[in-house]
């Protein structure tokens, strides 16, 4: 019976949905990665995703082009992130409070803005037509491989972009002068200043990039995943992304793996909640619980490492 259950869960469709569900979390989590590398905490990812998601739909509708919609979402994401940056760096507002402010804008401000621009209440209804959705693509060769093709091919353009960005992010952080500066600023701002790096400029760039990535995540949500914007849409994904980054040790690859774990947990929830005799509420807990457990495991392993290093240095003495 259990094997039946497992078989009915772990099929190609399911794995396909894991990848689809992971993508928006991954976008935001990569945003958290780049911010964290520069020593900036961007807790506003959730709000940025909400607002970008809304503007992605609006720009797409106004111009009747999904691409301009996505670009608009990214621009809005960058502007919001820079707003947090401006208040944090220039006005010395605590950056966590700045992030919470943007989250508030995301929760209620979006409903206000939607009403202001379109007169609609709480969701964008029919604004998103089939032509305005982010298109999916089939990958020529992989498509025809039996199982793998079903899992890996036929995703939205942005899904592939999300995973491509993992690699790109790694390159930027570890192989470019900008990445070097970002890491320097994050690890030791004083040292960075002493060699003539403008800490503030680098932090603006980092938080701006994190906003762009969260903007992509938002666009993915409204212009592909839920096919329209509604007020409960992002549902904590921005926060889960923060957790994924913490669990992935702030590294692109690790963050991708932990994002996949959350994607798996959420896909499982969708799958299992339709079954008889299973409480959909308890299943809904899974992704959040996995996050906490993951954080704890990560914290324990860090602590052990530190201990080992301590005993090792003591032994050397």
């Amino acid at each position: 019976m259990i094997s039946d259950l497992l078989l009915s869960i772990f099929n190609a469709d399911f794995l396909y949905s894991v990848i689809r569900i992971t993508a928006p979390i991954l976008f935001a989590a990569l945003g958290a990665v780049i911010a964290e590398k520069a020593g900036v905490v961007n807790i506003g990812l959730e709000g940025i995703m909400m607002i970008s998601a809304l503007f992605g739909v609006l720009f797409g509708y106004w111009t009747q082009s999904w691409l301009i919609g996505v670009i608009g979402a990214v621009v809005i994401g960058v502007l919001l992130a820079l707003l947090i940056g401006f208040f944090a760096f220039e006005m010395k507002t605590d950056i966590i409070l700045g992030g919470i402010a943007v989250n508030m804008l995301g929760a209620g401000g979006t409903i206000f803005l939607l009403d202001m621009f379109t007169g609609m209440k709480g969701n964008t209804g029919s604004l998103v037509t089939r032509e305005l959705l982010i298109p999916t693509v089939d990958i020529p060769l992989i498509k025809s491989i039996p199982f793998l093709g079903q899992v890996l091919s036929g995703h939205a353009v942005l899904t592939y972009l999300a995973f491509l960005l993992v690699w790109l992010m790694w390159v930027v952080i570890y192989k470019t002068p900008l990445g070097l500066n970002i890491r320097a600023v994050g690890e030791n701002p004083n040292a960075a200043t002493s060699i003539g790096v403008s800490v503030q400029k680098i932090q603006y760039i980092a938080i701006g990039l994190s906003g762009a990535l969260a903007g992509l995540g938002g666009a993915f949500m409204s212009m592909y995943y839920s096919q329209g914007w509604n007020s409960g849409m992002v549902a904590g994904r921005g926060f889960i992304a923060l957790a994924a980054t913490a669990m992935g040790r702030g590294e692109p690859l690790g963050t991708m793996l932990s994002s996949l774990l959350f994607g798996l947990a959420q896909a499982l929830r969708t799958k299992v909640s339709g079954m008889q005799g299973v409480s959909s509420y308890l299943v809904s807990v899974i992704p959040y619980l996995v996050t906490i457990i993951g954080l704890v495991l990560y914290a324990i392993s860090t602590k052990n490492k530190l201990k080992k290093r301590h005993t090792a240095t003591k032994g050397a003495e």
Partner: protein
Amino acid sequence: MSDKNLFLFNILRGLAAILLALAVAAVFIFISSDEPLTALKYLLLGPVVSFKATGNVFNTTSFLTILAAMIPTIFSGLAVCVMFSANQFNLGGEGAIMLGGFVGALLGIYLKMNTGLHQVVCVLGGALAGGLIMLIPAILKVKLGASEMVTSLMMNYVVMFVILHFLNFVFADRSKGATQTFPFQETAKIPEIIANGTKLTWGFVVALIFVVIIALFMYRTKWGYAIRMIGINQSFAQYSGMQVGTVIILSQVIGGMLSGMGGSIEVLGRFGTFLWRELPGYGWLGITIAILAKNNPIFVPFAAFFIAYLNKGCNLMATYSDVPSEMIDIIQAAIFLFFAAEQFLAKYRQRIVVHNAQRDLALQEAAASQGGSNS
């Protein structure tokens, strides 16, 4: 004295930040509304004035409902004050409030007790539940260094879904169409101070008492001092021999207990049965209130009043004009940004400090030269 000038400056700066936030709101209203003046009238005056053809009169009932709306947010504001004072960005107030409300509700439904004692037991039960749940992020932070911000955020969702599970599958009153618990026993309900339907219950008095208790705790006890000192400089606190870990845990458990207490008092005072289907939002309001109060418990009721007033104003505005009530979030966000901005109007602060320093120096020199002539 210099302190007096700076104090005055801080108050003026706070007012300026609030005015700026309201100005931002006004800009949005003028852009979005066809009747901006009506909207503004209801936003700013509606909460305490009834507009009648015969003239405008003070609306006592509405004023009392604003006071009633402060009950849960005073508690959540106090909770955030204590936790943020220790520099712990614990955002789990939402979950603790909902859990406290749920536990209080269950005790109010299933326990058999005399009125008076029953309410106390329910509220204490809610407080205990809130305190216990906050132990989790607190201990994970202190023992393992896991970010309390992320764990507490995740916990909010865990708490919500687990409550919804129990609500739907264990404690549901199946005779009702909607999913809700059985009604509270009369002995558990928290009565209104004056029975007039404004929901201004004795919980309001309890909330004010706790304002005093928490203020005394933070500024007149060694534990409160330790919490504030850890918030200002954790290393210093550690080197001077404070039990940093214990105090950090304590601050968050107190935060959780206050939240849970607020949740249970709100549920038992406002409703006849447990009705929350989602996180109630008082935890986030508590953060806004704590920021407005600059983490000082004494200012919490004023900040809570201001937020409750604005909230009411926004609701009235949505009812009587074409501006949606979610305006409140835009105002709150603007308050957040400007009010918490240390550099906002910092030039003037600098000027006051310099002015005071120069004056003090001049006084000292005068004193010194006088001393010289005397000898």
